[in-house]
């Protein structure tokens, strides 16, 4: 996702990676369907209503959840609102510059949003305070602290873990119609955890969880998000190359195979973090 001007890999390195792939191996020793070491931690941001950090190899992402009260969308008056935003602060990579989100940050946010939204992970209809006029707004802010590839998966897992750890202040409507925020907190109503899985295609080989180095030489990538009951809920192809029909099918099958384990990992980490 880094721009080429900033991250050009030496030709010899590229050739080496490819020759290894031809032998069925990756530079860091992983198998084609193996994720890097993953570390998930919730509750890392005290001022947020929910938060999580995910380290996926050297990729490091923090997600913070902030809620507020606002108006529903006019066409969905009886649903809460959630907004996913991704920032690429310049701490994370020499190719990130201060400023508003670029096309990469926007794509990241929208792909994470799509998987969460289409799977109906957040029970938005339970976030209504006064039907038609006052609902909860849930801000999901993805903050990339170090970029070493596969930001979509790392961000998505952090977002899901942060949402799972979220406790919202209870809100009651007083006799005079005014809203009152209580000290008491309640969990965000959720159902069925969606999982994004991203594969890259390099020299015709398909491999999961690409590093930044791998991304810089890949032809294309394909992200699929699947629901807890095994449906596809979001797909995004990226990169200037292409996939054949068969490759798409293979990615889909691998995604369906990998998702349950990752879901367990996230749920375990959230439970662990809450002890």
């Amino acid at each position, binding site marked *: 996702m880094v721009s080429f001007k900033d991250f050009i890999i030496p030709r010899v390195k590229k050739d080496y990676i490819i020759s290894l792939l031809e032998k069925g191996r990756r530079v860091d020793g992983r198998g084609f369907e193996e994720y890097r070491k993953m570390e998930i931690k919730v509750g890392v941001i005290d001022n947020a209503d929910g938060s999580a950090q995910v380290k996926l190899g050297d990729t490091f992402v923090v997600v913070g959840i902030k809620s507020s009260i606002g108006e529903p969308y006019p066409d969905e008056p009886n649903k809460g609102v959630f907004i996913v935003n991704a920032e690429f602060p310049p701490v994370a990579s020499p190719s990130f510059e201060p400023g508003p989100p670029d096309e990469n940050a926007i794509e990241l946010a929208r792909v994470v949003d799509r998987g969460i939204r289409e799977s109906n992970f957040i029970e938005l209809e339970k976030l209504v305070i006064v039907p038609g006029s006052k609902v909860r707004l849930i801000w999901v802010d993805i903050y990339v602290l170090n970029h070493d590839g596969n930001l979509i998966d790392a961000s998505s897992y952090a977002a899901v873990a942060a949402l799972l750890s979220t406790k919202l202040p209870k809100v009651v409507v007083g006799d005079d119609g005014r809203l009152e925020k209580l000290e008491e907190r309640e969990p965000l109503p959720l159902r069925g955890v969606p999982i994004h899985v991203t594969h890259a295609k390099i020299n015709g080989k398909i491999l999961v969880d690409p590093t930044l180095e791998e991304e810089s030489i890949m032809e*294309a990538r394909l992200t699929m998000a699947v629901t807890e009951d095994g449906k596809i809920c979001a797909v995004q*192809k990226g990169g*200037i190359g292409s*996939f054949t029909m068969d490759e*798409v099918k293979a990615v*889909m099958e691998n995604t369906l195979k990998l998702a349950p384990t990752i879901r367990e990992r996230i749920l375990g980490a959230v439970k662990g973090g809450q002890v």
Partner: protein
Amino acid sequence: MRRRDGRAPDQLRPMKFEVGILKNADGSAYVEMGLTKVIAAVYGPKEPHPRHILMPDRAVLRARYHMAPFSVTEERKSPAPSRREIELSKVIKEALSAAVLLKQFPRTVIDVYIEVLNAYGSTRVASINAASLALADAGIPMRDLVAAVSVGKMGGELILDVDDYEDKYGEADVPIAMMPGRGEITLLQMDGLLTPEEFIRALELAKKGIMEVYELQRKALREKYEAIWREYGF
């Protein structure tokens, strides 16, 4: 099942493809897919500006998908690009880049500008269809044309070429672009809910639609060039 506008599930809307309609552009095309109307223009290959984006070994293809303020069914849209427009610009750029022989024009830029004039569903695939023709019209060498359709799901059934109503009330939307002659998928997105089996069937239905679009694209190009040949008395 018949659809709201009377189409069969696997039937495209009436389509119109015109090539070379803008005088200033190096290449241009106008596409209608039902009431969805888009125009695309290509400028380049040319010197990049700003220069730091140039690549020593290939051209950089840039794309901008933009909706006219009056194009939407809802109230007037602000002309400032939305996050949606920025994302679509990116995936369209990638869908087209796969087909263009970028290595033939190192240190240059090719700009693809797309304006949605009337939006009634499947604007991104209409944009790709128009842009692909505009690239061909500009004489830019390509591996193949890029042709695109979207497949949806409504009332439990898969449907081809999703219109605005079906997009809003349907259960899923899968826009796909391919180089039809090579069987390569260059754009693939999806939202909604599909079983794995439905997803595979959606790809196959898309392929059928793409082949039809491809024929129309080639016809439009032939007509443009035959018109030129006639003009020159061939």
